[in-house]
């Protein structure tokens, strides 16, 4: 079962690398922001599988925290891009 988790980690890392191309080379700030949001969602799944691969149960709390931080960050950035100010 540890092999399946390792293969899952490897393939999620490959998809993060594919998304990182769009975050670096994408034209305009919206493409980059969408790619960063997608990378954050993949990082949550990566952290959960990583908790089973290293047999540390603390990674799930980090995944919960990362989900909230990613959501709030994307929402605040979208608001700033829409209005030009934060309040």
């Amino acid at each position, binding site marked *: 079962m540890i092999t399946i988790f390792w293969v899952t980690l490897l393939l999620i890392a490959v998809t993060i690398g594919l*998304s990182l191309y*769009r975050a670096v080379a994408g034209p305009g700030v919206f493409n980059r922001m969408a790619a960063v949001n997608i990378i954050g969602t*993949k990082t949550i*799944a990566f952290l*959960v599988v990583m908790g089973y691969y290293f047999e540390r*149960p603390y990674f799930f709390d980090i995944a919960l925290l990362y989900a909230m931080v990613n959501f709030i960050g994307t929402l605040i950035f979208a608001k700033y891009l829409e209005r030009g100010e934060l309040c």
Partner: protein
Amino acid sequence: MLIVHIAVTMLLGAGIFFTLVGSIGLLRFPDFYTRLHATGKCDTLGGGLIILGALIYHFFAYPETPLVPAKLAFLIFFIFIANPTATHALMKAAFKTGLKPWRLGEERR
């Protein structure tokens, strides 16, 4: 235990498939709106399936800690609410700042 391993492997494989398809869509589509159309749904379902596989594995392999599957179930619930909301906010911000949708025959951007 073997049936649990097969189920977990199938769930993880399905999650990886959806995540990979979403990433290829993010690379290959011609326009911002079509890219968000590809990734906003595929990535939500892919991440949810991967975490669901981890939940089922933990529920049968470590039954002495029942708090961790509850945390993972809350994580799936939060992703299924938060990720479409973030995608909608980004798309609305892009539309209000005047980014035109791509028409057939135009150049990729």
